[in-house]
């Protein structure tokens, strides 16, 4: 296939979900079955095209990047800035091709699952419309070759996340969670935006390839390496928000208020992976310091997520914190320089985490049905303490769930083992190269914890005895549309699709296709180069594998010992470490901290401004008004008494003189004569004296 065809297919993949969204949002309700078949077939068509593109790319254009640029706006010469032209475009390289498949595949399976899970929902067609919009947005991020278009897609997925988390917006907790997700993402996006601005101001272009060229030729932002590091860290802020890294991870657990398929699609497989994808895209311009920051943040996030997950009882919350932890892993991998491992883990995690969420959806769906039958409307269908023994009633769900759990725990023969192994090896190499041994330490610790809490989840949900024997009778397996995606994803969680060698992650086609790009950063600031890294990696690989197998085994053993064989009492353990337990159950009190500092801070500021507005501004306005009223009052009185008084007194005087002078009109001629003679005498005297 020619390059143009490939690019056309890529554009088609991009626009198919958008078309589905447009149709669904306007006429969806009137279509038969509210149009779910329209959305699902559109995304499946996109999946087929994506597979074709991946195959063609990897076989024919393995080392190339196929790009399609277009000028969006050309302002020509702008006084004071110079020539201003914004060029946008799409590009398909190996990373993009892989991501295309991941996004369309998970989206397609979620569409299919939703036709069963969301059956009878009050806003059925709108849900599918938003799924289509989300797919389009995510594909925009993946296909963009410039920061501008990437940012557009970035914000769009944020909106879709808000809309889908708040799908059942009548529930206050759901609408609150939607707002929280959007606002917390926004905080990260602020840093992202400033980073983009720094890069644009320096290089006058949004195109990534041109920016890399610029840096490679030695042109640093504002001529200083600090600014380059700062730009890198700021751009990473976007990933911190989107991928729920510490400290902006607080929105992800609350996002579980949305429908479970949404959690699967957005909050497990794709949107949260956008952050990882961003870091992978921007890898060439990261300095060693920036990468160090990224690695640490990833490690800390992984640790926090895992520790909280062990103490949670809601099935979706456990998976949410597990997601946070695994995202931390991916970010950490990119930070230490294990680029391909990070991307690999992104792909494998998407598969098994989506599967885990869909599986939990299946469980919740069954629990809902059972509780409805037994008329227990107060029991939480998502609480694992209400479950147990579901294995017999839901075999498909159970076995697929086990496969996912094995994958996430890093048990051999799964895809998860391959990718996690690569990451852990990478951290060891990093620790050895740079001396930051904390990172591999955390990595292995979290691996163990992951195995523990995931198997805890499986045991409590599916194994043992169900708490209420009456209820279990009404639990049954989910319909085909829900179990088929589970099976597909379970299959994709096995090693076969990724590498021929079940123990050799390095020989995976993904790892070989998505190679670590050359850093464009000046050598003095760059992390150890790929070559050096590879060499050290090879040395520590064996050690890493052994260690990872050991910690995974320990974790699984501990889980069974505590929850299945009941040799160790979880409750006694929790009671003995009550403060620590409380700390973990309450999610390290992050929400409370943010509430007190940020939320109350903003509210206090709002109250202060309201005070200013009421007293100072309104006071000024009211004062002006009062002043005007007083002035007009005084003026009125002045008018009444002084002016009118003057006029009235004039009239009064006239009347008075008239009254007086009236006396002269006696009607007697002789009086007139008297006055006439008097007048003559007056004149005489005047002339005499003058």
């Amino acid at each position, binding site marked *: 296939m020619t390059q143009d065809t490939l690019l056309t297919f890529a554009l088609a993949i991009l626009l198919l979900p958008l078309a589905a969204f447009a149709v669904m949002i306007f006429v969806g309700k009137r279509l038969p079955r509210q149009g779910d078949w329209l959305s699902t077939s559109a995304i499946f068509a996109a999946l087929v095209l994506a597979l074709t593109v991946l195959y063609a790319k990897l076989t024919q254009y393995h080392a190339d990047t196929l790009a399609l640029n277009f000028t969006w706006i050309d302002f020509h010469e702008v006084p004071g800035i110079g020539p201003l032209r914004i060029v946008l475009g799409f590009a398909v390289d190996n990373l993009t091709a892989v991501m295309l498949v991941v996004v369309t595949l998970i989206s397609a399976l979620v569409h299919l699952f939703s036709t069963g899970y969301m059956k009878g929902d009050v806003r059925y067609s709108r849900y599918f419309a938003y799924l289509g919009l989300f797919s389009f947005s995510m594909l925009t991020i993946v296909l963009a070759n410039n920061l501008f278009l990437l940012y557009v897609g970035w914000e769009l997925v944020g909106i879709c996340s808000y809309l889908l988390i708040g799908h059942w917006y009548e529930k206050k907790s759901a609408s609150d969670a939607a707002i929280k997700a959007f606002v917390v993402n926004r905080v990260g996006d602020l840093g992202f935006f400033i980073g983009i601005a720094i890069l644009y101001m320096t290089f006058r272009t949004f195109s990534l390839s041109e920016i890399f060229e610029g840096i490679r030729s030695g042109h640093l932002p504002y001529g200083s390496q600090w600014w380059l590091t700062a730009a890198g860290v700021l751009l990473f802020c976007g990933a911190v928000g989107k991928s729920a890294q510490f400290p902006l991870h607080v929105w992800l657990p609350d996002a579980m208020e949305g429908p479970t398929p949404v959690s699967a699609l957005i909050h497990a497989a794709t949107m949260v992976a956008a952050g990882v994808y961003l870091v992978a895209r921007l890898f060439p311009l990261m300095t060693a310091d920036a990468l160090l920051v990224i690695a640490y943040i990833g490690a800390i996030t992984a640790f926090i997520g895992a520790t909280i997950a062990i103490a949670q009882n809601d099935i979706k919350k456990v998976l949410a914190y597990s997601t946070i932890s695994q995202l931390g892993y991916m970010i950490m991998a990119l930070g230490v320089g294990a680029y391909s491992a990070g991307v690999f883990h992104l792909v494998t995690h998407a598969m098994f985490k989506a599967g885990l969420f869909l599986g939990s959806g299946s469980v919740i769906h069954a629990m809902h049905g059972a509780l409805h039958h037994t008329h227990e409307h107060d029991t939480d269908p998502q609480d694992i303490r209400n479950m147990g023994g579901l294995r017999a009633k839901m075999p498909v769900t159970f076995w697929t769930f086990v496969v996912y759990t094995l994958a996430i725990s890093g048990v051999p023969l799964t895809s998860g083992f391959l990718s996690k192994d690569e990451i852990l090896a990478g951290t060891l190499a990093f620790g050895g190269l740079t001396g930051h041994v904390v990172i591999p330490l955390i990595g292995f610790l979290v691996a163990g914890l992951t195995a523990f809490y995931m198997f805890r989840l499986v045991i409590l949900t599916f194994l043992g005895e169900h708490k209420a024997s009456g209820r279990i009778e009404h639990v049954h397996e989910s319909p085909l549309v829900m179990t088929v995606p589970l099976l597909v994803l379970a299959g994709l969680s096995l090693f076969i699709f990724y590498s021929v060698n079940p123990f050799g992650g390095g020989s995976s086609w993904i790892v070989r296709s998505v190679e670590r790009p050359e850093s464009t950063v000046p050598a003095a600031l760059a992390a150890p180069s790929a070559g050096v890294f590879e060499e050290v990696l090879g040395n520590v690989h064996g050690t890493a594998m052994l260690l990872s197998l050991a910690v995974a085994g320990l974790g699984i053993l501990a889980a069974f010992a505590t929850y299945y064989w009941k040799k160790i009492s979880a409750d006694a353990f929790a009671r003995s470490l009550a403060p620590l337990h409380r700390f973990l159950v309450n999610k390290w009190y992050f929400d409370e901290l943010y509430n007190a500092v940020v939320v109350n801070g903003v509210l206090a500021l709002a109250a202060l401004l309201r005070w200013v507005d009421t007293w100072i501004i309104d006071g000024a306005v009211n004062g002006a008004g009062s002043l005007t009223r007083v002035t007009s009052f005084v003026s009125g009185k002045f008018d009444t008494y002084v002016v009118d008084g003057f006029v009235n007194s004039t009239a009064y005087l006239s009347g008075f003189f008239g009254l007086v002078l009236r006396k002269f009109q006696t009607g007697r001629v002789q009086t007139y004569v008297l006055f006439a*003679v008097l007048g003559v005498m007056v004149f005489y005297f005047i002339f005499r004296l003058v």
Partner: protein
Amino acid sequence: MQLFDIAFYVFALITIISACIVVFSKNIIYAAFSLLFTFFGVAALYVLLHADFLAVTQVLIYVGGILVLLLFGVMLTNNVISVDMKTGTIQTIPALILVAIVAGSLAGLCYSTWKGVAEPAAGGPQTTTATLGQMLMTSYVIPFEIASVVLLVALIGAAMTARRHRNS
């Protein structure tokens, strides 16, 4: 000139006293007759001033005409029951004050001529009639004619005004 002075003083006194009676008398008939003596006194003064024609004219017209007319008026406008007809004054005080002022001013004026001309002009015709007649017909002919017209108008006007109006 002694006789002249004495004559002057006598006739001046007659004139002034008569005039005072005219003005201050309550009885209107007394006032009218005093006016007669005033006119005569003035005529005598005219003679002393060598205005013989005027003296006679004064007597003729003033006494014979105007005084008679005034008497007619008195008789016609009062209920003549007795000779004693009383009449009063109004606004006496203001009039007296004014008159005092007037008199004072005039007296002051007169004083200023005290040192002036003393002797009358010498010469002149014994009688003035011819001279006056000539002057009237030559220098003062227009005023003379107008005076005749005025008399005519007065005649007609008086006749018109005073006639008894018939009720129609």
